[in-house]
């Protein structure tokens, strides 16, 4: 297998671990960790998409001639995605704090006044 594909495998593994955590863990904080894992996987996937082996950073000023550059667009996407991820994680964690304050637990099996 090409060593250059390894980051894609890692990204897929991160997403799968994240989904596993979301589906099988019962603690609100662990659910947030699961979501963060998926997010990291997706971000890694985006960055890897734009990577070119031996490429230089995509700045045209004083760039050497005929040198391959890594793609700038996926990096911009990743930055945006990281910023959004920060906001969602912060919001999720603050909800978790307030759930704990009201219910006295983080166990999703005990936090279920809303059902049916």
């Amino acid at each position: 297998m090409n060593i250059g594909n390894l980051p894609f495998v890692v990204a897929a593994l991160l997403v799968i671990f994240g989904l596993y955590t979301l589906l099988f863990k019962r603690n609100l904080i662990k659910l947030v960790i699961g979501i963060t894992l998926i997010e990291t996987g997706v971000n890694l996937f985006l960055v890897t998409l734009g990577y070119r082996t031996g490429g230089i950073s995509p700045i045209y000023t004083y760039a050497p001639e005929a040198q391959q550059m890594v793609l700038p667009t996926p990096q911009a996407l990743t930055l945006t995605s990281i910023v959004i991820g920060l906001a969602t994680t912060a919001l999720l964690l603050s909800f978790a704090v307030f759930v704990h304050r009201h219910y006295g637990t983080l166990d999703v099996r005990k936090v279920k006044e809303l059902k049916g």
Partner: protein
Amino acid sequence: MTALTTHAPVLLIAVPLLGAFAAPLVGKLGRGVRNTLIGLIVLFVALLAALLAVDVFGAGGAPTVYELGGGTFTFPLSGGQIPVRILFEVDGMSAFMGLITALIVLTGAVFSFSYWKERSGGNLYFSLFLLLTAGIFGMQLTGDMFNFFVFLEITSIAAAGLVGFRVWLKQSQEAGFKVMAMYTLSGLLVLLAIGLLYGQHGHLNIATLANSINGGLVDMIALGLLLTGLAMKAGAVPMHMWAPDAYGEAPAPTSAVLVANSQASLYGLFRVLFTLFGVGVSASALGWILIVLALLTIFVGVTMALIQHDLKRLIAYGAVSQIGYMMLGVGVGLARQASIIASSGVDALSDAATKLDFGLVSLQGGIFHMLNDAACVGLLFFASGVIIRASGTRDLNRMGGLGHRMMWTSIFFAIGAVALAGVPPFNGFASKYLIYEASFQLSPFLAVIAVLSSILLLAVFVKAFQAAFLGPKTDATAHVSDPSIGMMVPMAALVLVIIVFGLFPGFFVDHIVTPAAKALWLGHKAYIGAVLGGI
């Protein structure tokens, strides 16, 4: 006026966005100043959406492209130019969705002015409200997949904030966490799909992507992820758990805007299915997937509504089931479109449109129902807010006899309920009739389920109406009265919409619904052509 119309797509997003961040600051000057500012903003936004709609529908729903910043490109592009700028692309469908959002945001904001009178937190509330508005408009008008994701996340964060920002309420925190988790997951699925599409085709622009998508393996994986993510955010049934919690626990005027938000995700789904993948990957199977999801959504939504005794949760499940009707209408249209393309080619679509093929009728029904559902569900949520504040309880078993002293509210509630259940002569009947008629031609079974669920929904609302408004007065309801004029006017406006659309459906179907439906039915080529020229 023309400058306003030209710049409408970006102003529709920029003005509420600026307003969102100005609201907490202006709020320091006092409630009156803040409300005036918010009122002006939503009025301006509604005016812009109407202008944009007049402009787009005047041109028969043909897509127009707006480019943000530095006007160096003229569209359609020529000579290998790459659209690297921020693009907005508005066609009949986008303009139609803009109208829905404008209606709900305008009535919701006016209703909120009176609804929030005695409570603190109004500044934050309006800040999130306008942020959500900006996000919804962004999703509907953008011509770029990544911008679509960004606006999707803006609506996610603002919507979850609105659901859970009353931190002193126990259930709202639980609902807030659930909503944010589901929204984030759906957003990440969409982002992953966008990453896959970018890796495969090297574009993010919807038109250029649509031009090069050919239905390879990566395309289909991306389609699956987009379908899952957007259906999750719209509240379609296997992924609907967050929806009743969110609609039920959010403040009453916000619940209506949350429904508009779900519809914006639905719009994204339709845009992906028809425009992005459209003719390139037309398969009846996709339409049938949508139909199955729709039937599940309709049936589960209605049956769950039947067993609720919490008024808001009951309406929330009703709102979930209505999402199913829209998906049913559009799913039938998609399946029919694919079979027409398979049998006689893409060019047969415009021929089928002139003959009013049932696929197009079904699309009309599904799209028209979005507008009708927004009006009816909005009205019901407003009325439920009034009822809950007057009686101090959400439990239907503890209400009763409200009709004695709240005549107008009970009339409004009744109109909203029967209109949502599809009783003539109200607007819900007009759109549901199109859906019944068209889905019957694809398979009678679909129409049977749809009609049966409508009847069940009527039963649900008869039960709710009887429990809340009829019967003797109780201790809780002895001293209630109709709300102030500030809450009556938005409800009356929605009732007016319901009645006018119910009495003259033909006019609206011809002038605004058909261009929107045609934008999906045969707009694939025009959408690409508006950016790339006649390819």
